[in-house]
């Protein structure tokens, strides 16, 4: 139960921070995503994001900073296994599932659904 509280609070806090960035700065959602993934990779490399992920589980891994964390950790563990080559293979290998799913389901949605007029 405590785990779920941590997941909710940390995940919620990362999203609330994003809302502050959107409202207070001129950052568009696309820029928020870029900032979050880059910040996640940097914090992960500095050893700061790992403890957060162990503390809050999905609260830290579902937000896009967690995607950056997975990319960085993938690169690091691949370098440990295969040397410099791992710097190029590790990141994508660790995140391949999410990326392939987004490409595939995005394509499938375009195939199956009719684009709707934006009603706002």
């Amino acid at each position, binding site marked *: 139960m405590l785990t779920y509280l941590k997941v909710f609070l*940390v995940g919620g806090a990362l*999203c609330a921070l994003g809302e502050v960035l959107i409202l207070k700065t001129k950052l568009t959602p696309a820029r928020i995503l870029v900032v979050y993934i880059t910040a996640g990779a940097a914090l992960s490399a500095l050893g700061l994001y790992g403890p957060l992920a162990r503390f809050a589980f999905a609260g830290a891994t579902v937000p896009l900073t967690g995607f950056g964390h997975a990319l960085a950790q993938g690169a690091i563990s691949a370098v440990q296994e295969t040397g410099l080559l791992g710097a190029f293979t590790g990141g994508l290998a660790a995140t391949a599932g999410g990326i392939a799913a987004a490409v595939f389901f995005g*394509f499938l*949605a375009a195939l199956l659904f*009719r684009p709707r007029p934006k009603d706002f």
Partner: protein
Amino acid sequence: MQQSGKKQALIREYAQLVRRLTPKSQLGLGCLRAFWVGGAICLLGQWIAEAAQRWLSLPLSAAQTAASITLVFLTALLTGIGVFDRIARYAGAGTVVPITGFANAMVSPAMEFKPEGWVLGTGARLFTIAGPVLVYGIASSVIVGILYYFIRW
């Protein structure tokens, strides 16, 4: 003179009305919405990951990947039937920051630009926003890997 006094009073009254009817703080309200919806999405991800660990006996990292894929699938489905946009308009960053935002940024233009063709419409526009995200994400991971190779902290 009388006329202008009346006008002044009317303007004051209107200003009071505006103050009374605007939400106390746009920022506070937006943060609250982003907080609870974003937190709920993470909670959903946690439940999926735990279910994958328990029922499919996957190790933690594979279970997290399974959770990501499931969230991406749900986002694509909800975007397709037009529900995601409504949730996103309410939640703001609450749906943008989790992996649902990344997925929606691919699915939405892929559908919207279908009339421009399967190759340069759907195929290219899938990456309008996801492209930059992947460029900076992948470049960061390569830099981290190279630095790690030479420094090994």
